[in-house]
């Protein structure tokens, strides 16, 4: 009934030697690392030596999809990028949607491994077995929209998908990203800078024919249920209508919208202006989607003479980082900042958060106009946003300092500035407050690649009734305890954080969208995930096996970091999270330090990590079939 796990086809490019080759990875190994982030880790660990400079030719950059990519069902088209991060110094890991992932797979490749550094800027062109490194001199220095146009003209075809860096990556901005469709970002960890350091401008794939399901009848039943599921699922339907930004104002009303560089959680003067409903009613031009996805959560906005719909529209994180973090109340300027980030290829979260950090430095007198080059960097100055995004991307003047990220900028500005950098492992916080979501705060601290909001489920779903979709699905992961509020941090919450982290880890491995495939509120739950694997590719698996895949990935990442010298000392939230919020309904609220510290200790223990170092023990590595790493 089922079939052997497929082999993976790996395209290996050595830019220094101009070598192109393909390799097969046997299905037995692929099954342990069945795509995306886990496959990226497996491949990166073959090549990356400890202690290398992430922006040197010794780094490896892996683009990977999964054994499932291309099946015609919602939430299936994601590409993962792995390498050593220049922002955090840890392993770097980032996902993006769109159509590029499906077409990379349709060309026959599960991963592309990039090593070395090209002497001159090049782009990689993949059309089935025809692989070429092409001269990128005409597109180097161009923004993403211009590059797309030039590449299409040069190749004389429109049936291609392009994943590329902008000038931000070329100029090695520490949080440069990789963009496809001009608006889908492998946003975090500075993977765009790694690509730029290799003089690789883009990967271009010819469009191909996506794979068909193994058991068409069973798979169709799963795929076709999406209409019914959307109708029944208010959360995902709302996400489709208002985008990820739909709840921004509600966060402010609760007092937990990070505002003015996390000094307060309340933004009454601006939250309504920049929330998803306002976007929907004003500047939204259309809802866009990824391959085969019925949710259509992507925003396309237009402001005549100011914001070009080619570059999409702001997500919640972007609306928060450029909006509330900076005290900016203009949706138009937030959208313009989003556009510029997508044009120049820089992460909207780290960019907006770093500008918010600079604004607080300015308000506190740590920097003045002699440093900002005349820019009045008060919170709320919307006009500063586009100026600074451009300066950062081009590393011009003050922008050169901010291009290093808020932590390194703070180190240069002096000890007064360091507490104003809201980072863990030097990566800026996404817009979910640990004070409101302590389990998310725990994951911000221990996550191998810095603070991340998409690495575990969020606390509020445990407040839902026992018979809700959220709780019944979580119960399948062994998470049965409900809560009367979000704020409790006890042993069961730690288990919730770890088990859902494993689940999200498999989603990033199988390259599935976390809004469609998840452990609680999403369109498809754990049962359907197993069914997708079985009917989609004939993988006779179980929830147990795929949870172990998720756990394996996390441990590989943590092991990578161990080799780099990271320990539990690096798993720290910034002090501000433990200081009282100012104003609004959450005036005086803090994250309970004692509960957080206790939770971290329990997390290490139940993760099978050493309590002294916070790193995986040898027995945990062996349990997860990672002996080979210990022998390296």
């Amino acid at each position, binding site marked *: 009934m089922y079939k052997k796990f497929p082999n993976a086809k790996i395209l290996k490019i050595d830019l220094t030697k101009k070598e192109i080759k393909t390799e097969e990875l046997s299905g037995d190994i692929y099954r342990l690392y069945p795509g995306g982030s886990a496959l990226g880790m497996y491949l990166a660990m073959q090549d990356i030596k400890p202690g290398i400079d992430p922006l040197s030719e010794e780094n490896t950059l892996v683009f990977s999809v999964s054994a499932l990519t291309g099946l015609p069902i919602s939430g299936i088209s994601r590409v993962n990028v792995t390498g050593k991060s220049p922002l955090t110094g840890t392993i770097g890991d980032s996902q993006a949607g769109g159509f590029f992932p499906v077409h990379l797979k349709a060309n026959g490749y599960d991963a592309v491994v990039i090593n070395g550094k090209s002497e001159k800027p090049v782009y990689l062109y993949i059309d089935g077995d025809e692989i070429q490194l092409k001269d990128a001199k005409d597109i180097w220095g161009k923004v993403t929209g211009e590059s797309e146009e030039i590449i299409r003209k040069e190749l004389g075809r429109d049936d291609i998908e392009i994943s590329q860096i902008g000038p931000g990556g070329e100029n090695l901005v520490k949080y440069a990203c990789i963009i496809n469709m001009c608006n889908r970002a492998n946003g975090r960890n500075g993977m765009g800078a790694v690509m730029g350091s290799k003089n690789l401008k883009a990967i271009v794939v010819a469009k191909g024919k996506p794979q068909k399901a193994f058991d068409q009848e069973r798979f169709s039943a799963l795929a076709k249920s999406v209409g019914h599921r959307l109708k029944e699922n208010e959360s995902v339907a709302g996400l489709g209508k208002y985008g990820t930004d739909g*709840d921004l104002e509600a*966060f402010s009303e*609760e007092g937990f919208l990070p505002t003015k560089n996390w000094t307060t959680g309340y933004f009454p003067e601006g939250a309504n202006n920049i929330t998803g409903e306002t976007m929907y009613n004003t500047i939204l031009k259309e809802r866009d989607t990824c391959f085969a996805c019925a949710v259509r959560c992507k925003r396309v906005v237009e402001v005549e003479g100011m914001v070009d719909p080619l570059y999409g529209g702001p997500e919640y994180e972007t609306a928060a980082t450029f909006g509330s973090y900076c005290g900016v109340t203009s949706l138009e300027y937030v959208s313009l900042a989003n556009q510029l980030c997508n044009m120049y290829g820089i992460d909207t979260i780290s960019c907006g958060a770093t500008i918010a950090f600079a604004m607080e430095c300015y308000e506190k007198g740590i920097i003045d106009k002699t440093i900002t080059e005349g820019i009045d960097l008060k919170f709320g100055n919307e006009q500063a946003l586009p100026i600074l995004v451009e300066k950062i991307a081009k590393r011009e003047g003050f922008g050169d300092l901010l291009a290093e990220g808020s932590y390194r900028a703070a180190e240069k500005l002096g000890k007064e500035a360091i507490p104003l950098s809201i980072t863990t492992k030097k990566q800026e916080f996404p817009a979910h407050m640990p004070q409101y979501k302590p389990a998310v705060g725990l994951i911000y601290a221990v996550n191998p690649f810095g603070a991340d909001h*998409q690495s575990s489920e969020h606390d*509020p779903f445990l407040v*839902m009734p026992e*018979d809700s979709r959220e709780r019944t699905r979580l119960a399948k992961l062994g998470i049965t305890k409900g809560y009367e509020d979000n704020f409790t941090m006890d042993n069961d919450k730690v288990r919730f954080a770890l088990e859902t982290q494993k689940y999200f880890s498999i989603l990033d491995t199988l390259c599935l969208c976390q809004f469609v495939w998840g452990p609680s509120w999403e369109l498809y739950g754990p049962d359907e995930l197993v069914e997708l694997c079985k009917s989609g590719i004939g993988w006779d698996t179980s929830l147990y096996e795929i949870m172990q895949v998720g756990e394996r990935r996390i441990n590989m990442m943590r092991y990578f970091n161990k080799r780099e010298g990271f320990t539990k000392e690096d798993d720290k939230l910034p002090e501000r999270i433990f200081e009282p919020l100012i104003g609004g309904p959450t005036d005086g609220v803090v994250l309970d330090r004692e509960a957080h510290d206790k939770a971290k200790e329990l997390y290490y223990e139940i993760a099978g990590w050493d309590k002294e170092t916070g790193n995986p023990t040898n027995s945990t590595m062996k349990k997860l079939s990672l002996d080979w790493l210990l022998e390296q």
Partner: protein
Amino acid sequence: MEVKVNKKIITIPEGYKVIDLLDHLNYGRNVSVFIDKTQLLMSEYESTQIKENNNIRIIRPLGGG
């Protein structure tokens, strides 16, 4: 009749069930409801009658994104 919802006193018609209150306040169904500190099951929203002076807490889960 008067009830307290999320710390505010409001007036609603007699005979309201939880589901009517959610509609009245423009909530969807995907929320948590506590009446006098006891959490209801979702399956009880249609049948549970609200009484005068009930202290009601409605929580909408705010997730990721």
